[in-house]
């Protein structure tokens, strides 16, 4: 029955995407450039479910610009079964894609604001997409202050962009990079990412802060921002929970009354600050 096909959109069905390139970012992080079989528009901050055929799925936020919908980049840290299998993949092989899912960054609310971005570790992936989206319409925003912390110099993701290219893009863009532990060649800041939030020359009432990284980093960055005078509704958090179905049904990503997959992954802090398990 042809009309049944039309009536039967299947949100569990992945579409095919070919791996075009694989970039080794750090010893355990790779970026995969994918070409989906169909155009795959998304809003920056939304996430996708990526399938390694026969192995399974995991949620990732694209790290590429939302202005490009025929290709997509996804940056993945090797931590478990699915990501290990993904890290084995070579150009020419295919993966599955579902999505995009959830609520991304509401860029309209960022217009004419001073945007503070605070990232930690592989949390830089969604922030890269956000940064590229902001740069695409840089005139719409007042300025961007980008703070990023990695464990060590060799753990810095998008190393060349972060250290060399992005800071030189425009006078309205400034970067503060730090590592937890330096090495012989490292000449920059050493310390947790929260130390880069000292002495910010931002007019906070006209600012928004975006935070993404490991839970502990998000917790202390958020608390520090509150201490600096940010209101909870000015702080945008990209929450990591165990999103599985992506469509608000399977229950794995419950955060209080919210499902992170449909109500998030981007939340303003005021919505979830009282949720149990927020930083766990």
């Amino acid at each position: 029955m042809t009309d049944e096909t039309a009536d039967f959109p299947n949100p569990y069905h992945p579409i095919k995407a070919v791996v075009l390139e694989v970039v080794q970012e750090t010893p355990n992080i790779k970026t995969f450039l994918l070409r989906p079989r169909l155009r795959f528009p998304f809003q920056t901050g939304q996430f996708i479910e990526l399938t390694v055929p026969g192995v399974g799925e995991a949620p990732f936020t694209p790290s590429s610009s939302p202005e490009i919908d025929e290709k997509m980049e996804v940056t993945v840290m090797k931590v478990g079964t699915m990501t290990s299998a993904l890290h084995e993949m070579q150009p020419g092989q295919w993966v599955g894609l579902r999505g995009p899912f959830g609520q991304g960054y509401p860029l309209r609310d960022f217009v004419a604001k001073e945007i503070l971005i605070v990232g930690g570790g592989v949390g830089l992936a969604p922030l890269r997409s956000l940064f590229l989206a902001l740069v695409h319409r840089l005139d719409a925003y007042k300025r961007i202050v980008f703070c990023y912390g990695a464990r060590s110099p060799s753990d810095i993701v998008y190393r060349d962009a972060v250290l060399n290219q992005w800071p030189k893009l425009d006078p309205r863009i400034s970067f503060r990079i730090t590592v937890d532990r330096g090495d012989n060649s490292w000449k920059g800041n050493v310390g947790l990412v929260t130390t880069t939030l000292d002495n910010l020359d931002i007019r906070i009432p006209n600012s928004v802060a975006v935070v993404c990284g490991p839970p502990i980093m998000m917790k202390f960055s958020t608390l520090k921002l509150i201490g600096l005078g940010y209101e909870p509704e000015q702080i945008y958090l990209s929450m990591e929970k165990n999103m599985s179905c992506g469509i608000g049904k399977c229950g794995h990503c419950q955060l209080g009354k919210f499902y992170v997959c449909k109500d998030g992954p981007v939340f303003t802090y005021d919505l979830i600050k009282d949720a149990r398990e927020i930083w766990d």
Partner: protein
Amino acid sequence: MVAEANVLVIDDEKTVCDSCTRILSESGYTVRAALDGEEGLRHIEQEPFDLVVLDLRMPGVDGISVLKKLRERRPDSVVIVITGYSSVASAVEVMKLGAVDYLSKPFTPDELSVAAARALERRTGRAVEVLPERELIGERVAVLIQPDDLREMLKAQGRYVFVPRRSAKGLRYSLAGLRPDQELLSGGVRPVDPLKTFFFEARARVAVYPSSRPQVMSPAKMADLRRVIAGVKRCDLQALDLLDKIFLEGDFADPFYKAARENALIVTADCTNPTPSCSCVLMGLNPFCEEGFDLNVSEATGGLILEAGSPRGKRAIEACRVRRKEVAATQLEEREQRRRQTRESVIQMSGDFLTEEPYEDLLKEAEDSPVWEKSAEACVGCAACTQICPTCHCFFLYDRRQPASRVKGKYERIRAWDSCQYPAFARVAGGANPRKSREARFRHRYVHKFIDIKEAHGIYGCTGCGRCIDVCMGKIDMREVLWQLSGVKA
């Protein structure tokens, strides 16, 4: 407001043909009529129709032939088939040929116009305003019917009829109709199986990939979903309401749930024989249904009171050609009295656990209560409570190579029940896990059911069916835990 549409009515019975034409014209459609298949086909050759209302049994060129021809010539037309009462089986056949709905004779003007609106909505994808459900229900249709006749009537309403039946494993939903002496609505209490098993299978294949077309449900599978589920009790109907909100609302509906749900006829029945774990009254529910069903059955002296609660239920009553009588006022009174009695006996079983505060309030205050640790000690983490729960709907997805694959290199995705009581349920790949301890998982089940679901959907995630109490190996009684949390010590 109805959509503009060209409609063709083909029926050899002139009275039926005329009245269909009149009803549909009054609904605002442009209607043409044909008194046999041949004339109908001539119209179809000449102009396109958005909707064809087609009688199945006609002399000469019959409905099936017209339908086949129509599929070739005008694949965009949607078709509603009209059948006699006895030919439901052939109705299923024509559904396979692409008809979107069927009406059994006799049908009411309302039924025809609603079916037409629905069919056209399906075709255009536009929202067509149909009569609001309330208005259709109007004054409730209720009749008195005999058990044997009810069985026959329900059999006509679906391919399969399920009823609760006593077995060695307790009261279970089973296929009805094998033995004539079988009680249709036996038990008087909810079966062991939660109703969700009909709509949300414990394990189901939800995708096959890679494929450029999403998996669709085969017409055969779709026809198999025309099920009548009878003897449903209030606790399970309430659970179904919650599952509807979860699986059907929002940006993405679950297509498998949707298909099963839309094809099912839900026949509820008053509870008459509650078990000791029954606690619907604690959840603000009664042990009988007043709305949300297609049909409801209540026992009364002299027969069964059969009440319609939806257009489909009303259609079923009106279409049935079995002996039926008006319900007498005394019988309605008797129903009220029986309902009150059952309610009283549930209160007897559960009333002692009644807390002063609503559960959501007392749980907010009891977050750090020592009761959690003490109660969780008896929990073995088996997750039986969530598996048997009529509202628990968490699942996980896993992928595998298709076994004995016909086509090489295909994979399949399986959706299987999961449980928040399993340690890794909320764990993320990086290792973070908000509920590492059994106590945290134990508490989560309560907090989620009584606070989170209430905030998100307006109703509790517990309907008081008591199944979790019956199956718990640690003999944990949810009512008791809540009561202890309230601090009200005997």
